[in-house]
């Protein structure tokens, strides 16, 4: 197969791109992506946008349609200033987890960059979105555009009807709780049939008249049942309100004694988007690693086949090298571990372990060391892991040595930081565990749950922060968030910290 393809004429020559050339390049990329790598992708919709539009897309968390809010304006203002003063470049691409998969290419890119970006986004990211279990389980790629359009229009209608300030107040509060607005472990309780009907009515009412915001009333939601006599005991409340509840936005939406139906719907919108974006937060290393591995493989293949010129190939490699650079901890450019670098290195390493395993690899990865189907091993990894579990399973001693990783322990009880592990035989397992933990959102984000709210008593909302390893919440911010929470709840809110036995 390779031999027959070696003597092709290049797809393009020179920096200018045209739609014809992009079409040709895309076809060539697709052939390698599907037939060689065996990728499985959503249909692609590739859009060419200008720098300003890229800035727009940036500020709205990368989504093509978004409701309006001042914080997006703030991000736009800052990104624009940074960009105009040359202190920050723009991403070459943005890609959206949707079906069809939309990716944005900038008009300023050269043809070589457009090719690289298509391989990266339209095939690498696209495959990852379509196949990774988190995205499959938690996001609705086909429905997201409709939902975003609904959200945008709904919030605009609320602004019309209730005023900018009233809507802003709810959005500010909802945004403050966004990280606590996702279900981490289990699915939300299934909507009851009444809820489904009510939701349906809200949508329909909204679409037909755009004014029936009040339709989601207590009676359609069956909320009045709460008022029925019941055993007032704590355990009954816990059962009825699904306590403890980690999803604060969900809890407020369902149980706040104060919120109007339209305010609940806004909380719901913010919560739905937080949940939609949650898998992306959990898979930064894997997602970028997958896209980078795919583009690197494809451009090399294109070059081998004579489909791109040496000049174009050098340009792509230059860009690739910049992207996967990992400064060391004492380098002024160091700002944490680069997900592109780590993800790409791990995936290249998996391929190496399949093709040229050492004894060490065989010992550490008996399942796939020497497996001739490295493509299959990678596809399986892309589909079934998230950053934390991926690192825990696939980070090899070889890479730990290559990155010269070490663990620094910061114990407030000790006067100094301590180097607790280095890249030697004794340290591999611990470093791998520590690094994996560094990507575990459940560990990184504070664990705050609603533990009680007696709607028939003092109505105080009780939250519990489970403190791990003696790390408390930032107090200043905590106070601010609690103010927002009180606004949404309407009554007192108490946040208690509970220390768990530390897992040293």
């Amino acid at each position, binding site marked *: 197969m390779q031999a027959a393809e070696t003597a092709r004429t290049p797809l393009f020559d020179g920096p200018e791109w045209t739609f014809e050339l992009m079409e040709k390049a895309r076809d060539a990329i697709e052939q390698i992506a599907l037939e060689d790598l065996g990728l499985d992708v959503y249909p692609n919709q590739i859009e060419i946008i200008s720098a300003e539009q890229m800035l727009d897309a940036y500020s709205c968390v990368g989504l093509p349609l978004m409701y309006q809010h001042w914080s997006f304006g703030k991000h736009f203002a800052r990104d624009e200033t940074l960009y105009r003063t040359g202190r920050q470049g723009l991403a070459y691409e943005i890609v959206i987890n949707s079906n069809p998969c939309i990716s944005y290419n900038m008009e300023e890119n050269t043809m070589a960059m457009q090719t690289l970006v298509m391989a990266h986004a339209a095939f690498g990211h696209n495959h990852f979105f379509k196949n990774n279990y988190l995205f499959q389980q938690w996001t609705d790629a086909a429905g997201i555009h409709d939902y975003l359009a609904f959200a945008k229009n709904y919030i605009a209608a609320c602004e019309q009807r209730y005023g900018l300030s009233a809507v802003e107040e709810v959005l500010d509060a909802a945004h403050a709780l966004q990280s606590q607005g996702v279900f981490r472990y289990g699915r939300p309780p299934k909507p009851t049939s009444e809820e489904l009907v009510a939701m349906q009515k809200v949508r329909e009412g909204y679409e037909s008249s755009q004014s029936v915001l009040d339709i989601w009333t207590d009676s359609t939601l069956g909320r009045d049942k709460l008022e029925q006599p019941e055993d007032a005991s704590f355990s009954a409340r816990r059962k009825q309100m699904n306590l403890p509840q980690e999803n604060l936005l969900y809890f407020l939406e369902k149980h706040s004694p104060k919120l109007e139906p339209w305010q609940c719907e806004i909380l719901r919108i913010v919560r739905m988007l937080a949940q939609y974006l949650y898998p992306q937060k959990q898979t930064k290393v894997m997602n970028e690693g997958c896209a980078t591995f795919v583009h690197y493989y494809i451009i090399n293949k294109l070059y081998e086949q004579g489909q791109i010129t040496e000049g174009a190939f050098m340009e792509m490699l230059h860009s690739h090298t910049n992207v996967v650079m990992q400064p060391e901890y004492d380098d002024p450019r160091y700002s944490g571990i680069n997900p592109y670098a780590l993800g790409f290195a791990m995936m290249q390493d998996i391929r190496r372990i399949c093709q040229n395993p050492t004894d060490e690899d065989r010992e550490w990865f008996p399942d796939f060391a020497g497996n001739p189907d490295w493509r299959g091993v990678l596809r399986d990894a892309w589909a079934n892991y998230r950053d934390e579990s991926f690192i825990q399973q696939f980070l090899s001693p070889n890479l730990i040595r290559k990155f010269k990783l070490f663990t620094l322990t910061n114990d407030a009880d000790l006067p100094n930081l301590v180097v607790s592990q280095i890249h030697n035989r004794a340290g591999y397992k611990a470093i791998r565990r520590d690094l994996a933990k560094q990507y575990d959102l459940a560990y990184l984000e504070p664990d705050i749950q609603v533990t009680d709210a007696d709607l028939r008593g003092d109505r105080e909302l009780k939250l519990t922060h489970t403190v791990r390893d003696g*790390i408390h919440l930032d107090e200043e911010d905590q106070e601010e968030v609690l103010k927002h929470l009180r606004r949404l709840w309407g009554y007192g809110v108490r946040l208690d910290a509970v220390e768990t036995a530390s897992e040293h």
Partner: protein
Amino acid sequence: MHHFIDRRANPKGKSLGNRQRFLRRARENIKERVDQSVRGKSIQSGSGVPDGGEKVTIPARGLKEPRFFHSSKGGLRRHVLPGNKDFVVGDTIKRPQGGAGQGGRKASEEGDGEDEFSFTLTQEEYLEILFEGLELPDLVEKATVETETIGTRRAGLTTAGTPNNLNLVRTMRNSLGRRIALQRPTTKSQRDLEEQIAELEALDDRTPPQEDFLEALRKKLDGIIRKRKVVGYIDPLDLRYDTFVPEKIRNSRAVVFCLMDVSGSMQEREKDLAKRFFLLLHLFLERCYEHTELVFVRHTHHAQEVDEETFFYARETGGTIVSTALEKMKEIIEERYPPDEWNIYGAQASDGENFGNDSARCKKLLLNDLLPVSQFYAYVEIVDEAAEMLLNNPEAGEDLWQNYREVKAQAQHFEMQRVSQPGHIYPIFREFFLPKVKGAQYAGS
């Protein structure tokens, strides 16, 4: 299935709504900064705000989006870092101050840790915030002064038009491009050839090769002439005309008289305060009128019209006779600014000291001559920093202040205030221009 979509032509400014919400949200902070920036600015002959807008830095505090996140202090944490060179297990490192490199807020969303937030306000936004809620006094009267005429505005280039609208630069650029592309022979090449031919023709007896050569040259010349004829120097294709569209022009013009006391008692501090006031007034009027002119008059015991530079920076001392400045203003209005064509504004700054009974004369000049033709007149008295008493008690004051108080009693569009420090300027300026109760008109006008 796949497709490409060209989105570049989509409407831009998708985030305009977000930007407006952001400005609305940050208004208080931005106002504060705009106010500060206006205090530090010097008056310029054009506008006080750069065309590209004004860079504003506001504290991120005001725009904070709080989240629950882990404190960067205390507890036990492990960080995996790349690039170990010679650490061995058990090595200790001093804890960096402020947790640098430890990334204490790793779990948080973007945007933390920044203390300041910089962005650029457009000029329009800047002025809008600066003068938010202010309006010109006597807008009604102003409208009667305005005349509307039909003017024209440039509206790009077309390929057809009248000769007087020919855009020479663009036409010649097209012509040059076409001549180069079609390889039109230059005048010089034709002339060279003609000279050569003339030279040959001048010879009495030509050898046969010379004959042949002459013949060839003639042929070549014919070719050149033909080509120059075919490829014209200017072709109708090259022509570009400016086009104009009619537009209503509102002929509202305003002149601002800046009258400043520069007598011995006015020191740098006093002049600086006066200058800030004039700057604000100028910026504000510039927003409302297409055309604003500034007239600078300075006075000691005699008044003179000066340029801006002299107005603010020249040193001259002498006694004080305030009325000379008012006389000067009256004189200039009569000479150059007929009140039926101009909106006239007066701004006067002084430390309030005046000679003898001149203050009564000032009152007369204002009431009889200046206020009837002015839209608005503001008097700012710059008092000593220690003169707390004067600031709080409008009834107390020197001769000039007392006389002006009488003017104020009779004229609604006359305002007076005292200031003693830069911070006072903007607030009193706002006070001058806050919307007044409607229907309050000067009886004498």
